[in-house]
């Protein structure tokens, strides 16, 4: 029962165990850190197994087919089959590839995702309590960018390098709206510490800053490289982009890293905008808070999968235009308006502030809609060929040969 109220007694129990084995207190402390780090690294990776199955089933159902249903009941053992297949694949290293970097890139990519987890508050008093957590998240994002650059370069394949350049261009372009949108919860909570941001959400920040949440969500999907922004790794684009030369377990690491990154985006969205671990009863039972966080994160992950199943891919120049000409100015406007309004409404209660900011966001959205409509009018009309306007190739089927049998 005490465990439910305060899960950190596990740490104390482990420490007593280590001391009982005769280790010095500082060594026991070090060992506890190592055990904690291993647990935090392993947990999300195990959860990825379920995410892979869920994504394949969900996308399949959206596309009106069944998805994996052979391996195990409802295809639940499919990810294990996938992993076995990838493990037993031949480990091909291209000739003249840079062996050290080639080997290091998938590890860095997965590390860049796992390093996000220590900053996330998992419940009251458990999980990360990093002072500069928001900035830390941005810093770790740059590690993923590096991993992709190294992956593209070390494969000794100019198309992989081109794919890597395009990926890095996309990722660093979408970091700008993410950082600007991240500033809004920091502003509202007056702290960069994610635990403080969760504690300040008496009213969920998605009510006070829906536009910032939307910008963060869209830009994060682009940052992870999911559809509709997965130009970089789709099979039809420059032969699958930067990981063309990777096979077997190395490719599996990129693959698992992408799914985990998408889920981590869901967790971050839940922490920043949907109240994190807060919910009825979460103050008393931290594990209940963890469950609420997981639920919210999973719902956001479902939305990401839903978007994947529904939208066509965005072209690279449209993609970059979208971030630099739309998302970044919008994020700047939202940030300025939120800062001004939050200072003006600082004396009011949380609900009054949230609703005031909601109204302001609504006004910004109306202005944006008007502007978008004006832009549409000024664009050239879509090219619809009128009869006789452009030479259109005509297909005349060949004359049916009388000699051919059925």
């Amino acid at each position, binding site marked *: 029962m005490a465990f439910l109220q305060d899960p950190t007694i596990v740490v104390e129990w482990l420490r007593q165990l280590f001391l009982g084995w005769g280790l*010095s207190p*500082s060594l026991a402390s070090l060992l506890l850190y190592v055990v904690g780090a291993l647990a935090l690294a392993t947990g999300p990776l195990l959860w990825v197994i379920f995410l892979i199955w869920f994504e394949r089933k969900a996308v399949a159902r959206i596309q009106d087919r069944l998805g994996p249903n052979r391996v195990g009941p409802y295809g639940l053992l499919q990810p294990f089959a996938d992993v076995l297949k990838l493990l037993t694949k031949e480990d091909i290293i291209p000739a*003249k590839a*840079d062996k050290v970097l080639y080997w290091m890139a998938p590890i860095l990519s997965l590390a860049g995702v796992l390093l996000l987890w220590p900053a996330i508050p998992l419940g009251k008093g458990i999980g990360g309590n990093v002072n*500069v957590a928001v900035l830390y998240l941005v810093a770790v994002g740059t590690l993923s960018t*590096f991993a992709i650059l190294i992956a593209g370069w*070390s494969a*000794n394949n100019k198309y992989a390098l081109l794919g890597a350049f395009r990926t*890095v261009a996309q990722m660093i372009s979408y970091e700008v709206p993410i950082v600007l949108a991240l500033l809004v919860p920091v502003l509202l909570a007056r702290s960069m510490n994610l635990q403080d941001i969760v504690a300040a959400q008496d009213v969920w920040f998605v009510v006070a800053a829906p536009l910032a949440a939307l910008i963060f969500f869209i830009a994060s999907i682009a940052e992870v490289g999911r559809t509709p922004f997965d130009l970089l790794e789709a099979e039809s684009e420059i032969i699958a982009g930067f990981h063309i030369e990777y096979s077997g377990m190395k490719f599996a690491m990129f693959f698992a890293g992408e799914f985990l990154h998408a889920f981590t985006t869901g967790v971050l969205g839940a922490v920043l905008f949907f109240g994190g671990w807060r919910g009825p009863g979460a103050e008393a039972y931290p594990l209940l808070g963890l469950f609420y966080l997981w639920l919210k994160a999973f719902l956001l992950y479902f939305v990401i999968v839903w978007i994947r199943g529904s939208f066509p891919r965005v072209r690279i120049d449209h993609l970059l235009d979208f971030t630099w000409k739309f998302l970044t100015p919008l994020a700047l406007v939202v940030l300025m308006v939120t800062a001004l309004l939050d200072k003006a409404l600082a004396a009011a209660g949380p609900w009054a502030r949230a609703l005031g900011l909601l109204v302001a966001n609504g006004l910004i959205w109306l202005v944006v809609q008007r502007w978008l409509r004006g832009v549409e009018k000024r664009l050239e009309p879509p090219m619809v060929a009128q009869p006789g306007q452009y030479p259109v190739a005509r297909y005349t089927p060949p004359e049916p040969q009388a000699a051919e049998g059925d």
Partner: protein
Amino acid sequence: MVTTFVFVLTAAVMLVAALIAVLKDNLVHAAMGLVVTLFGTAVLFVLLESYFLAVAQVVIYVGAIAILIVFSIMLTRRVGAHWGRQTNATWPWALLTAGVLTVLFALMVRGWDPDAVLPAAAGVPEDITARLGAALVDPNGYVVPFEVASVLLLAALIGAVYVAWGGRKAEKETQG
């Protein structure tokens, strides 16, 4: 003891990475060594309880500067091409200078006590980031250097746009 262990580990990794950065002929490997060294610096900042400085180090140095360095290398070299030597003919003098500096440093840290409390642990206030932010916009603080730095960045941005754009204007002139 944990801090000492982390410090020794980080210092060892940083030394190896720094040697890779200055000695390796393959420029991309050298750049990666630089990246690891910069990460190690961030870890040292964390050990000194300057968390904001640590993440700022990673964001600015690794996220921007190192990526720029790696981009410029990758755009101008081929994998497997002959890179050329990193060191030139004056390497004995450099070795001598490094040796003298090492001896001086060793003399300086002769009295290092691994279990001593780091001096910064006593003095870093809780709200250091808030104070930094307030100082940056304080008229009696650093607001003028802040604005000057912003103008500098704006000038760099305009310059980059003009350089990237100037090509199109030249094309139009040759066509017309």
